[in-house]
């Protein structure tokens, strides 16, 4: 079984470490929710996995092979897909063109549309003109079309109304059910825990609650409150 593993991963930015010594294991078909307050270092951690920024200590590996020396493109081709914070669409491209970048051909686009039927009617619209929710759907579909093994999602809900975001959740679950490991960073903590198999909390760059069943955190509000608000 293939897995994405972080062991003692440390990420530095400017002054010093923004993430230190994180251990986690992401398995195929599993959703791991990574939650924590603003500035905890979640985004930096995801960026170090996909190669946007380098990690400074520890290791990041896929199936036991270290990715430390790999560039972004090589990691993408090894099956790491990263949905960045904000709207990661290519605004000047149509929806179809966005999908073609990873689906390679029209058949691939059709295949993806089967899982994202809502995009069908907007397929030739310029993606900049779509609503926020539709744009995030395009981004999910584009990532799915690349047939990733691991999907890193960074705060898809940013700037979306919660009801809109809730429509995206089943799509994420659906992607995971095809055997993709999903690392989910999300500000809507309870929504994220609701669809996750496992969860961990990051605060001030450190793991404040180690990886474990998501249910445990969900059912213990005091544990979660402390991890977030301190005190």
């Amino acid at each position, binding site marked *: 079984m293939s897995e994405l593993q972080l062991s003692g991963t440390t990420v530095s930015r*400017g*002054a*010093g470490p923004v993430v230190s010594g994180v251990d986690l294991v992401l398995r195929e078909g599993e959703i791991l929710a990574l939650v924590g*307050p603003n500035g905890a270092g979640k985004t930096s951690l995801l960026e170090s996995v996909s190669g946007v920024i380098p990690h400074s200590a520890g290791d990041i590996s896929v199936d036991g092979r270290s990715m430390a020396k790999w560039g972004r493109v090589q990691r993408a081709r090894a099956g790491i897909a990263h949905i960045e914070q904000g709207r990661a669409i290519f605004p000047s491209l149509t929806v179809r063109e966005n999908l073609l970048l990873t689906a390679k051909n029209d058949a691939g686009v059709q295949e993806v549309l089967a899982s994202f039927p809502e995009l069908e009617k907007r397929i030739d619209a310029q993606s900049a003109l779509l609503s926020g929710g539709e744009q995030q759907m395009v981004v999910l579909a584009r990532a799915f079309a690349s047939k990733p093994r691991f999907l890193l999602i960074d705060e898809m809900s940013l700037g979306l109304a919660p009801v809109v975001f809730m429509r995206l959740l089943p799509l994420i679950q659906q992607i995971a059910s095809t055997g993709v490991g999903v690392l989910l960073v999300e*500000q*809507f903590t*309870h929504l994220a825990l609701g669809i996750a198999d496992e969860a961990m909390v990051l605060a001030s*760059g450190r793991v404040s609650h180690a990886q474990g069943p998501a249910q445990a955190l969900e059912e213990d509000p005091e544990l979660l409150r402390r991890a*977030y608000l301190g*005190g």
Partner: protein
Amino acid sequence: MLLANRSLRVALPFVVAVLALGVGWALSVGLSGYVVYLAISMVTATIAILGLGIVTGSAGIIALCQLTFGAIGAWIVSWLNVSHAPGGFIVWLVAGGIGAGVAGVIIGLPALRLRGVNLAVVTLGFAAAFDVLLVQTQFPGQADGAQIERPAMFSSDRQFFFFAIIVLVICALGVFLLQRSRIGSSWKAVAFSERGTAAVGQSVSAAKLSAFAVSAALGGVSGGLLAGQVGIPYASSFTPIQSLALYILAIMSGAYLIDMAIFGGILWVLVPELLKRWGVPQDWGFVVFGVLGIQALTSGSNLGEAIRSGIRKRAKRRSAGAADPGSVTTSVLDVFAVPEAEEPIPADAPPVLEVRGLGVQFGALKALDDVSLRVRPRSIMGLIGPNGAGKSTFVDAVSGFLPQHTGAVELDGADISRLSPVSRARRGLRRTFQQDRVPPQLTVEAYVRFVARRALDRDELADALAFLGCPPPEEQLANVDVGTRRLIEVAAAVLSGPRVLILDEPAAGLSHEEHLQFGQRLTRIPSRFDTAIVIIEHDLDLVRTVCTELTVLDFGRVLAQGEAGSVLEDPAVVAAYMGDAEVTQ
């Protein structure tokens, strides 16, 4: 010993200047006739590069028309010569410098809106157009072969070389003193960040235009000298391609450093001369400059900085272990404990900052909607909220960077809603930035004095720095990590004695332990400096220990407001932080 050091610091540049004059005189006597002539070229090039160093190095502008300013200076000198203007060469030279300086301000005017590559296009366009004009019209007196009259005392080449050295020494001394002054600091600050410059009360326009004026004036003086050297100037001495080469030379040598400008001047003359001796066509000189320029521009480094950091490293290695910097801190903390017994603020004192109904709209998005708050004198208010709640927009609006905001901002009862960021800062409303806005070219001391905008006792300065855990005044900011730079930014803003200080995530780059230590020190600032603080912070442990009052923003609106402890217990606030605010409703 310290006192002696300080007076040495004042006297040293003048001593160096006198020594340089002596060396110049000796060279003017000792060098061979041919070399003296080359040496004059070296001096004129040095003055032009010195000027270029100000805009390219200090003010960070791509200026590709330095020799055009030289041509303007030469043109004015020739014209005054032909029209037999009174005063002789020295007065004409000054007039040339002033004329070029005025042209520099005119070319600099677009720079108030244009930056980077746009400005490069403008300056290159100016150089190209002026070159064509110059070839068409020629210099005054060029057609009649009217020689420019050198000053009577300096009529031979040897004497004129000494004259050029005098001019160079005056220019270099002037540039050195300017670089060390507020104006020089403003050039370096504006190069790094315009917002950061305005936020400390320095006019961005004044900084940019003064850089252009001084730079162009030096170009004009250089051109005027060249006119005196050759007798009849030609357009071929001031072509755009030479301006390009000069720009590259300035970049790769680091010409904002005076010694490196001199080094650049030497290279300018030496490289083609050596090539000539070796029988290589002189045009290879520009090829060499081109290759070195690619290296410098891709690596972002220059020779001057490389040499200096090498020397600094050596010095550091030698003095390592000699001093223990940690020992200052405790004693300083004790000193700071005393003045806190100032009279207390009465409970009914009017607020020092009052914001009423503040609104900011970006297109269809209401980034801030009807936000009101009152900050009492010497209090610390925390401004918290989830990502995208509008905290930084609030700081931008209150500090004047979003002039389209609605609602009112009052400082000490006076409405400042229509004022620019610069005048708000000067009235005592200071802010710091989430991004690094501390110009790395300055020393800690120069930066703090620039930001404080008032006379500071050196001990006061050193104490305040040590108090907040900052490096000593003489440290170069480039050697300080970003997290510590943010602390220096806070210390400098505090030393300006503001009425209200707004801190936007000041401790973001620090470790958790440093974070808490910073918080403890922060609590003592209001009473010590009679300052109220508004702080944006995401570490709620820090907020809990530092802030007396809290305002919570969510989706651009005030979610909760009041005494810190009770606000943090508010279920709505907890829910907002978990991202559950609207889900649960």
